[in-house]
């Protein structure tokens, strides 16, 4: 099953020679479709509904990029990737863009030859336990069985955390979030660990979310960022600045409601440059003048996407926290559009 994916990827790597080096933008344009690697199903971030339509926080990035490049946010083909297959899928050219809550780390950036564009969610690894277990702190997990997804940074963080605190644990390795969920619900592990946002999303899908608690300890830094292949700077810039356009739009008060109005021209030169009414930033990355307008129109600005997919009004109920705008005490900070 998994092996075939690897061999598929290997064959793809060998047969589609030169694809990795070619301009991804041209490929996407000639194909008329953006191929986006997403999670196999994490409610709020990327999950298909009953009709097979994908939605979520990561999916919104794919749609924004598709809108900016192709002018149509629906022209995206979603390829579900597991923690194990995602980098091979990206490296082999199977997907153009990996928007799959992937942590930006040194070795992935350099050794795996990935290019992380811009952090769109600042996360950290946490633990979820059953409420009736009476555990209130991760420090009480000595000797526990812990379900953990294989092929993720969480695996290494967990080992480091227990080592640093001189505790022991039994890792119960699972292959996907769905399997982890099932094992955790069946009681095969005392705690489930993954990114705190993932825990919240997973818990939201439980029958009785209130029977489970997420422990206060956050044991790692997990900046999640859409990733592309190294060696195609233009494509990297497109994805990076599309994400920044969404973040910047929130800062400047550009929303899906008022964007048509603002796109006619405003008093704020920064907004004008972003929306293409002044200068031609789009041409510098090989796109149309109104690329950012199309990207923002897809699902709204960063704040709107956050609120609609994982915000406090949704079942997942994540607070903005670190992901608030820098003006609100968060870390979301788009460089100037100039």
């Amino acid at each position, binding site marked *: *099953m*998994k*092996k075939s994916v*690897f*061999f598929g*990827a*290997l064959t793809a*790597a*060998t*047969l589609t*020679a*030169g694809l*990795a*080096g070619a301009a991804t933008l041209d490929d996407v344009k000639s194909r008329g479709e953006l191929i986006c690697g997403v999670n196999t199903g994490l409610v709020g971030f990327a999950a298909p509904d009953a009709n097979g339509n994908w939605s979520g926080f990561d999916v919104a990035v794919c749609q924004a990029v598709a809108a900016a490049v192709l002018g149509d946010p629906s022209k995206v083909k979603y390829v579900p990737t597991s*923690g*194990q297959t995602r*980098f*091979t899928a990206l*490296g082999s050219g199977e997907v153009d863009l990996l928007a799959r809550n992937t942590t930006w780390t040194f*070795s*992935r950036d350099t*050794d*795996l*030859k990935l290019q992380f564009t811009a952090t769109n969610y600042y996360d950290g690894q946490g633990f979820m336990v059953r409420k009736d*277990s009476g555990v209130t702190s991760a420090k009480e*997990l*000595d*000797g*526990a*069985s812990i379900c953990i997804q*294989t*092929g*993720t940074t969480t*695996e*290494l963080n*967990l*080992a*480091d955390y227990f*080592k640093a605190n001189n505790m022991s*644990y*039994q*890792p*119960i*390795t*699972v*292959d996907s979030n769905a*399997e982890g969920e099932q*094992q955790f619900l*069946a*009681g*095969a*592990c*005392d705690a489930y660990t993954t990114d705190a946002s993932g825990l919240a999303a997973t818990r939201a899908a439980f029958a009785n979310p209130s029977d489970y608690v997420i422990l206060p300890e956050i044991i790692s830094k997990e900046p999640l960022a859409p990733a592309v292949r*190294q*060696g195609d700077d233009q494509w990297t810039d497109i994805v990076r600045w599309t994400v920044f356009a969404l973040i910047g739009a929130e800062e400047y008060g550009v929303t899906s409601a008022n964007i048509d109005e603002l796109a006619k021209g405003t008093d704020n030169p920064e907004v004008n440059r972003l929306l293409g009414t002044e200068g031609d930033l789009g041409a510098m990355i090989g796109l149309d003048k109104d690329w950012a307008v199309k990207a923002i129109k897809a699902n709204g600005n960063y704040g709107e996407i956050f609120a609609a997919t994982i915000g406090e009004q949704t079942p997942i109920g994540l607070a903005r926290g670190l992901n608030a705008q820098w003006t609100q005490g968060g870390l979301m900070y788009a460089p100037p559009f100039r």
Partner: protein
Amino acid sequence: MTSAPDAPEQGFRLSQLIYDTRYRSLTIQAIVFILVMGGAAWLVDNVIQNLNDLGKDFNFSFLGQRAGYDIGNAIIPYNNDMSHGRALLVGLINTLWVSFLGCVAATIIGIFVGVLRLSKNWLVARLMTVYVEVFRNIPVLLWILVAIALLTDVAPSPNAYKVNQQTGEAQASMLLDSVAFTNRYTAIPSVHFDRSLGSLDTALAPISLNFLALVIVLIASIWVNKRMLTHAAKVQEATGVRPTMWWKSALVLIAPVVILAIALGINPEEPQIKGFNFTGGTNVSNSFVALWLGLSLYTAAFIAEIVRAGILAISKGQTEAAFALGLRANRTMSLVILPQALRVIIPPLISQYLNLTKNSSLAIAVGYLELRGTLGGITLNQTGRELEAITLMMLIYLAISLSISGVMNVYNNRVKLKER
């Protein structure tokens, strides 16, 4: 009288390569060979080219780096400070362990089912048919998943074994006070010696000298027993009367080991629930049991068919001759039919062993970390060395398979018909 005219003497022409039947097959072989080699060269060149484009090299130095991850079911000592190479070894040993136990169980179940399927008892024969058809016609991955689902959902969590402070009772009780089935693992007692002879540190794992001593004594007993049986056979040939051997064999085989074990102060160390989990005994993880059960039951169905085919291949006359000599049905089976059937059974049996070993890579589905899970899973992901890890994994599986067929071929040569 004129002789038949000789073939006209003329030089070799290129068209002969196609039209002359003497050369045609050679030509075709040469062309195919060149095409195949060309294709292979093109693939290899492509890989090298793409690796260069990606700025990646091909080296195995990652095996020496710190692994950083933990493995839940390591047989040899392992922690996250050890190298990826060590993790590979842990995975390899897990693969070999589950494959070995799987082959043993599949063979035993397979022979039973195969023989019983030929039983004259209608119900038994039909039941075995149902077993074979159900197990071999459903993918083994599903059987493994069914096994893990059953184990996880049916058994209580370790917490259920905890004594409630208020009521003074636990929800679940241990079998014979020493075995606890939980939804994570089965806690069984482990062997503990009061007097230790120390342990031998090898690179792989420290070996307890107590175990080593027991194994040596056991091997010695088996050797002595074999000598005694040879002697008994000689006596039987000479006098026609076989000395009563069973109690002597039993004494030689069992007594020395038991005496040594007692001298070393053997006692079981029973698992205790402590905190979240059982400690003290050995915890056999459910993922291992599920994998083992799935693999052995599935493969056993195929082995049963092979055994049945082997038995049916022996002519009916053999059975009738044995009956005519006055042998009972079960003696006929074990002394006359099975030894001959083995010649038919062994070659396809090798394939089944190979299949089982390769299928063990499905362990990833239940989170049992064997070779595919460590080298081909976590190591590959953490280091990003796909090509190296996959190549190494393929070579290792190839080596395992070739070793199994090598060993089995030796055995096959011993049981096959000796033509004199």
